């Protein structure tokens, strides 16, 4: 039973003082699933992620990863935070190494993966630069590379492509799909962009306004690569848009 679910969320409730953010939310995420979470601004998407990584503790309810209470020390998870989170005192290359060094991977393994990421994300010319010397979208690529390089079995992304121009976003959307397929990673992807959600997800979780509940779960059964002009795609996208608007 617990085997097939990567994440189980049971009666998750969170208050910040008097502010009621999450209200008795329960759902599961299957192993290897690609889940997108959408919802109105400030509804508690980031809060959910922070509860999953134990940055905050739930007020009520519990989260399980692989059947155990969530704990980043135990699980191999990577987070792409919403805010810029490259270490300003480390070069691009050292930033990419950061997570793997914490996990104490072998040096040649780190070298190999870093090289791979640098190529994948087109960061060759920025290798020895510092984050503040880069554009927002380039800096964000470091963070995505840092998360991918961990080859996590649970990848949590909080509006990772918000800062990027369309071309890079499309490229990285396909890249995250590739990574997900290659490694069987479970992905939780938070976004404001409904088209992005429908393009990526196997399932879209729509949250209501704060205090957030699950408004609806939408399965997206469109074969890949998906086309945004496909009538099926447009139908689902419009449906999700409606659901967010009608609160």
């Amino acid at each position, binding site marked *: 039973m617990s085997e097939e679910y990567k994440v189980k969320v049971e009666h998750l409730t969170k208050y910040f003082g008097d502010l009621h953010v999450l209200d008795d939310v329960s759902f599961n995420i299957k192993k290897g699933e690609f889940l997108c979470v959408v919802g109105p601004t400030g509804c508690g998407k980031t809060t959910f992620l922070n509860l999953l990584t134990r940055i905050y503790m739930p007020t009520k309810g519990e989260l399980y990863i692989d059947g155990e209470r969530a704990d980043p020390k135990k699980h191999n998870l990577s987070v792409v935070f919403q805010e810029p989170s490259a270490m300003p*005192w480390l070069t691009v290359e050292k930033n990419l190494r950061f997570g793997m060094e914490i996990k104490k991977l072998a040096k040649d393994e780190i070298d190999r993966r870093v090289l791979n990421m640098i190529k994948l994300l087109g960061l060759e010319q920025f290798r020895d630069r510092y984050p503040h010397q880069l554009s927002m979208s380039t800096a964000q690529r470091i963070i995505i590379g840092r998360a991918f390089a961990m080859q996590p079995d649970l990848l949590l992304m909080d509006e990772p492509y918000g800062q990027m121009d369309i071309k890079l976003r499309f490229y990285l959307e396909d890249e995250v799909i590739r990574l997900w397929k290659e490694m069987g990673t479970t992905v939780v992807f938070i976004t404001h962009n409904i088209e992005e959600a429908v393009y990526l997800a196997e399932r879209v979780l729509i949250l209501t306004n704060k205090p957030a509940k699950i408004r609806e779960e939408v399965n997206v059964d469109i074969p890949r690569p998906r086309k945004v002009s496909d009538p099926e795609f447009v139908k689902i996208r419009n449906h999700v848009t409606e659901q967010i608007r009608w609160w």
Partner: protein
Amino acid sequence: MSESPNVMTNEERVAYVQSKRKQTQLRDTMLALIGVMFFFLVWEAVVLTGLVDSKKLCSVLEVFKLFIVKFSDPNPDGALLLVNVWSSLLIALSGFGLAIVIGVPLGWLMGWYKGFDAFMRPIFEIIRPIPPVSWIPLSIVWMGIGLKAKSFIVFFAAFVPCLINSYTGIRQTKEVLKNVGITFGASNFTVFWKVGIPSSLTMAFAGIKVAIGNAWATLVAAEMLAASSGLGYMILMGRSYGRVDLVILGIVVIGLLGVVISALISKCEDFFMGWKRL
């Protein structure tokens, strides 16, 4: 090619920018030199025209002459200039060094570990407002007028800014950067070491710079009260012998040493914080 930068090739443009930068550097250096010269000229003029009594201010040249003479003549205070400099430096650097070695890590630990903060804070809050100079009598009683006593006083003067700044610096570590470490499974100590300390360095260095100023100021005060050599002592002797030139020489040397030490700290800072400059 034409004069206008619009139609330059890339290499030409780089060369153009570099030569521009060189020019500005040269200009700034010249201006700095002129500024210093101007200061000395005004000083000399004030003395020569008799605007100020020569008992109160001596001429630049006299100070310079004394500077040379004091390399080989221990009179009137009883020690060569270099001996005085060395004796002062030894005290300043030992007290200051100790303040860094103890104050900065203590600030980090207090800033990071809440329990340790609760334990140390009351003691620190009591020590903090005590003017360093007020330790002088006690330290004389405890340790006489030697190196140890004065190092101790200098230590207190430099310790407080070192601690406060590294404390504040590590406290200001961005939450999201800590969370990056935490979500990669790092222990609290690893996050402290790999995220907290690096992100506090800017503040810590600012504290160290304040500390060296404090150390120097306190040192001279300490030497005026209890010493048998050192720059503060030399100044004091100058006063009691009515030798303005000696007093001024002491002041100038202290100023110059301050500049040199600050420059060394900046070099150090560049080494650790080079990324900020780029």
